[in-house]
């Protein structure tokens, strides 16, 4: 072979490569398609932390790839995950997320309003950026409607709107599996809370030791990033906060609100409620809980935007004022049928003498309350903080001065990132309450069969797992694109393959655990790749060269993040 031959070969290859490069976009244009859609990044949980959601994200990504998208599944540690999704709202495309079942979510208002009302899109729970005046009106109306049936009808409408608009892909309502050692705890003293399971506030307060061991040792796979009455940075953080700080009301085991730090709650009219504080309550530093503290607790979250996580819960309050020796009066802007659950059972009571200097300092700074993840842990709750090492262990002691002092002496939360070690610890009684288990359910079932003192309890959660879209970033701003991506995934397959049967299909933010409010027909959706492709085709999306392109004339304006 001569040099000339090789020169001609190289020249021919260059011509072919250049022509292909020139022709490719022409080919897309010739087919009436817009630009190729950029690579989509799906942020997810690390496998060791949440194996079910991690697995589900792989299935979801695979389905999207079959529609012609390039998808990267990107695991992130929790502290980074929450930072990106919560604080960098313009910068992510899609993320796996979960709303955990908390007692205050026993009333659907918390999720119906806070998660999707446009007022919480900038800094609150509506981090997907869903802005729909029609939804806003329904969310507001259901909050102000005292008649149960009428309110239920509005909540059902809210579910159907989200089904139509798909601001996120609801995947499943997981069945939480928790367990305890009945050699340590009186079995009947472990409380099952509707939609929450046995890991709840009432269990922690009422669990009665059987023998010499009087401390509850439970686990979390995630570290506790913050213990603050003004900021919840994850599930484990919320367990601790609930125990250290009281609230005027609490959601009971039956899912209904009941007075807690309040002795009584009396509605004067539809926008005025009097709350009488219990007598004799003290803070953990020995000082008495006063009406001024209670008033301050509801004023502080409304100061500027210093407490974004709780601000929406007090937005509806016009004023809070003393109306008696131990009585405070709340005046609302509009009637709010969920006020007791969504506000009184959510806002933590904080000592003014501790928080006034902190908030005054914050008002002079650009930071908000979330920049103080571990403020002085002075609450009035049934447990008081002994040690906070969020990466290792949290230790709380019983607060004997509490009106409902716990039966146990101590509550110890251990951070155990290794699920196998968690099971071993549980079997050896190094942990006597299994609060967080992300491993295979069948392994836990076998363990319980081999060791009958280990009692398992499973409950469909109020919460839900989902893949959130960022509606601020095209093509996720297009409802058709979102619907297609959502319908591409078979939820029943996810329940079996990712959650091993320990979940139910979801297409709503109102869990079937909330039987009265849940729309039973909402999960009757057609899913599958043909359904998704049909939606994309009708919307003008085209597959060119194996890759999904925008409709004709639409440019890709963003880079992959």
């Amino acid at each position, binding site marked *: 072979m001569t040099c000339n031959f090789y020169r001609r070969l190289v020249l021919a290859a260059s011509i072919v490569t250049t022509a292909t490069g020139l022709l490719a976009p022409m080919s897309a244009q010739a087919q009436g398609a817009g630009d190729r859609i950029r690579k989509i990044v799906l942020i997810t949980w690390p496998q060791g932390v949440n194996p079910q959601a991690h697995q589900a994200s792989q299935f979801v990504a695979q389905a999207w790839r079959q529609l012609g998208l390039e998808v990267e599944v990107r695991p992130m540690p929790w502290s980074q995950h929450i930072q990106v999704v919560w604080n960098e709202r313009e910068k992510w495309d899609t993320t796996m997320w979960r709303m955990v079942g908390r007692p205050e979510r026993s009333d659907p208002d918390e999720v119906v309003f806070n998660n999707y009302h446009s007022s919480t899109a900038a800094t609150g729970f509506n981090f997907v950026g869903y802005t729909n005046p029609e939804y806003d009106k329904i969310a507001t109306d259901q909050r102000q409607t005292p008649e149960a049936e009428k309110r239920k009808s509005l909540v059902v409408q809210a579910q159907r709107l989200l089904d139509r608009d798909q601001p996120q892909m609801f995947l499943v309502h997981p069945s939480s599996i928790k367990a305890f050692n009945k050699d340590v705890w009186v079995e009947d003293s472990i409380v099952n809370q509707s939609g929450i399971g046995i890991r709840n506030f009432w269990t922690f307060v009422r669990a009665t030791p059987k023998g010499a061991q009087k*401390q509850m040792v439970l686990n979390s796979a995630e570290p506790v990033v913050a213990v603050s009455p003004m900021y919840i940075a994850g599930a484990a953080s919320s367990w601790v906060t609930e125990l250290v700080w009281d609230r005027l009301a609490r959601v009971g085991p039956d899912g209904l609100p009941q007075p807690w730090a309040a002795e009584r709650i009396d509605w004067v009219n539809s926008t005025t409620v009097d709350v009488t504080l219990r007598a004799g309550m003290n803070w953990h530093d020995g000082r008495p809980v006063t009406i001024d503290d209670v008033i301050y607790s509801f004023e502080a979250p409304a100061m500027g935007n210093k407490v974004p996580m709780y601000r929406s819960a007090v937005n509806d309050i016009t004023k809070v004022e003393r109306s008696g020796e131990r009585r405070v009066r709340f005046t609302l802007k509009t009637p709010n049928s969920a006020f007791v659950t969504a506000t009184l059972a959510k806002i933590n009571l904080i000592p003014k003498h501790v928080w006034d200097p902190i908030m005054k300092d914050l008002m002079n700074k650009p930071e908000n309350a979330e920049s103080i993840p571990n403020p002085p842990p002075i609450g009035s709750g049934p447990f008081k903080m002994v040690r906070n090492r969020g990466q290792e262990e949290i230790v709380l002691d019983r607060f004997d001065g509490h009106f409902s002092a716990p039966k146990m002496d101590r509550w110890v939360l*251990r951070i155990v990132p*290794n699920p196998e070690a968690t099971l071993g610890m549980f079997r050896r009684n190094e942990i006597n309450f299994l609060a967080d288990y992300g491993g295979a359910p069948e392994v836990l079932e076998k363990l319980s069969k081999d060791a009958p003192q280990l009692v398992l309890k499973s409950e469909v959660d109020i919460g839900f797992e989902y893949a959130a879209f960022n509606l601020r970033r095209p093509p996720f701003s297009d409802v058709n694109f979102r619907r297609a991506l959502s319908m591409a995934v078979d939820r029943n397959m996810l329940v079996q393959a990712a959650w091993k049967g320990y979940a139910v299909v979801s297409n709503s933010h109102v869990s079937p655990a909330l039987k009265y409010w849940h729309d039973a027909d909402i999960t009757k959706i057609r899913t599958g790749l043909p359904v998704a492709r049909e939606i994309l085709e009708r919307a003008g999306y085209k597959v060119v060269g194996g890759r999904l392109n925008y409709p004709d004339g639409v440019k890709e304006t963003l880079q992959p993040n």
Partner: protein
Amino acid sequence: MRFILTRLLHSLFVLWAVVTLMFLMFRLMPGDPMAAYISEALSEESKQSIRAQFGLDRSLPEQYLLYVYNLCRGELGTSFFIKEPVWDIVMAALPNTLTLTFIGLILAYSFGVVAGAYLAWKRGSLTEGIAIPIVLGTRAAPEFWVGMILLAIFAFNLGWFPSGGAASPGAMYDSEWQRLLSADFWHHLALPVLTLALYLQGLPLLLMRSTMLDALHEEYVTMARMKGLPTRRIVLNHAARNAMLPVATAFALSMGQLVGGNVVIETVFSWPGLGRILVQAVSSSDYPLAQGAFLLVSVALIAMNLLADLLYTLLDPRVSHERRH
């Protein structure tokens, strides 16, 4: 004394070079050098405040001086995600890491040196034929697998040791020293240390055996035999002492490397150490925390390197003799 001072100054120079390199790294890389300290999630006013603290709005020489000044004060910034001072986060984990690393290395090297010397002496025997593959097996086996096996046997089944953590639930101590010296701490340390020692012993054992084999063929060993000295004295006082020199260096360097590298052990045994923090910081782009932990590892490496130099002088008279002449 003069030698020690010289080596110390040399080490300080290396440390200065590392610190300077870290300073320049973020300024020479593409992208915003302020990413080292300022989270994008902060408001503009917060960013300005941090810029002022670290002098990021000043000229480069001024920034450098302020950077070194802050480091000398232990001011390493605030973790982007944990939102606590980096110094506090690192110092909380450091005692656990140093204990695990140091004890693990002592065990590994003590066993490795003795076993390596013995196997060299027994070269060609059945003992050597069985032991070497076993040692190579422990060297090749993944650390997490070894850890899980030990956990399953000694913790889950036999119940001899706890399954994780650095202390019993809720254990309280008046001081950090009290905690580190408590029986509970050592009980929790046992399995992680055993795993680490099992994983590490392969290197000193094989190194010692190799250098012993060379030493045993040296003329001074032949002379010692001819003089009729006892075998034990020949092996320990003559051959092993010379063969141990490279092992001493390896020990010192391993100490420095392992300070930030025990993440696998720490995850398997839920051991609250620096390795997990470092990996988490790097994977989440928590630059202040990653930098702070990295600086600490550098300090450890440089200090151990210095120790290796000084140990060499003590162990090998030829080095001090050459220096004097």
